[in-house]
């Protein structure tokens, strides 16, 4: 009784399949990986328990991702805003990053992930943090502040259509929809 991992019921499986972009295989795999992260005694109460962010970040798929913390925060439904995920949050995450998700979904979530201060727009502070994430955390790979300023002003010049100094969701989606690489790079598969 204590040694077998809890199974995912058939009804839940079909329900999850309908509600997400994932196939049954993917859901089962997600279930397996998620229960491995949980403590033993939590495994039977799948939806009630939350896995804290630190454990989620041990997943190899997320470990090397510069946006891992933001991803957890975006998909987390926890009231404490601590980035912990339930199983359903985890499925949401995988669904948005799956192959079959649409461009709108991906760009919507990408926007939220990049919006570091959660204010609904990408302003200079967000963009700066974004660039720092992308260039690695070590000091010798960072951009100088001159280069940073130049970069941010170039980006705003390219994407900010209404010239209000920030990139809002529609401007972001406008840029992203014309990118040939976005859909293929914005993918996480277990």
């Amino acid at each position, binding site marked *: 009784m204590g040694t077998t991992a809890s199974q995912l019921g058939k009804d839940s499986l079909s329900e999850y399949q309908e509600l997400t972009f994932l196939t049954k295989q993917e859901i089962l795999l997600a279930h397996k990986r998620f229960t491995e992260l949980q403590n033993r005694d939590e495994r039977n109460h799948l939806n009630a328990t939350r896995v804290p962010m630190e454990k989620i970040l041990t997943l190899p798929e997320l470990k*090397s991702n510069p946006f891992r913390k933001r991803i957890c925060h975006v998909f987390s439904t926890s009231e404490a805003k601590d980035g912990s995920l339930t199983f359903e949050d985890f499925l949401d995450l995988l669904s948005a990053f799956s192959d079959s998700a649409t461009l709108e979904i991906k760009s919507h979530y990408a926007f939220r992930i990049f919006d570091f201060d959660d204010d609904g727009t990408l302003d200079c502070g967000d*963009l700066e943090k974004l660039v720092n994430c992308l260039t690695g955390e070590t000091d010798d790979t960072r*951009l100088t502040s001159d280069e940073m300023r130049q970069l941010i002003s170039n980006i705003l010049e390219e994407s900010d259509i209404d010239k209000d100094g920030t990139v809002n969701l529609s401007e972001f989606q406008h*840029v992203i929809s014309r*990118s040939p690489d976005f859909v293929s*790079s914005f993918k*996480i598969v277990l």
Partner: protein
Amino acid sequence: MVGIGSFGYSLMVVIRTMANNADVGGGDGEEGEFTFAWKMFTSWDYLIGNAETADNKYASITTSFKESIVDEQENQKDENIHLRRFLRVLANFLITCSLGGSGYLIYFVVKRSQEFATRDDLSWYEKNELEIVMSLLGLVCPPLFETIAELEDYHPRIALKWQLGRIFALFLGNLYTFLFALFDEVNNKLEEEQAIKNASIWAMKEYYANYTRLLNDTDATPPPMNPADVIRGPCWETAVGIEFVKLTVSDIQVTYLTILIGDFARAVIVRFLNYCWCWDLEAGFPSYGEFDISGNVLGLAFNQGMIW
């Protein structure tokens, strides 16, 4: 004057809305590559799971950013302001020349048509020369303006505005020169009419004088002459009306021909010849005709103006 004013105003409104729409909607707006934005938002590969790969990726992203920043700075430095200004002045000069040239050409042709009116043995070309010239000008000059505008190296949206403004100037100028030339003709005809009226009054007086003398100073009534039969000179209204109708008709014909040849036949030729031609017809030179919204709408407004 009021007519011309209202025509000019409606044209301005149309142009402004067109330029605005070209800004916001159309595909030719702020395109180009979003190099920096794409680098920022899409360069990370989320499938990377390995720490080493991630480090490599960071390094490559950093290098790529630095390179593009340097590139951008180079581009901005290279802009030789003086050369640009010179080219722009040159382009504007060329365009003013062509505008003036077209105005002069129309004037010249109208004068010639006056001479033709006196002769009788006119070929079809000579009879319709004025209309053909005007339609051809309206056809040839806009592409000419576009090629000259390549010199200017403006942002596409700004270049579009300049282009529309120039086409507007072209059409307005053509219409004005046409009108003025016609006014000249009308004035001439009015003078002729006046001269004939004087002559006929003089002839009438002569006739009375002879008549009374013939009848030995009796006060005979002059023969009743219906006022409508009074000799009237050339009727200028009809002539002007005829000119305008000819102009409208020939303009319509030229538009039909352009559409037929320029778009339809071109598409057919490109599609079929592409199999046996050396270079890719569809991508390169005579590709499928674009639907030049701005140009066509302007043409429509111009035709309306003519009708008014």
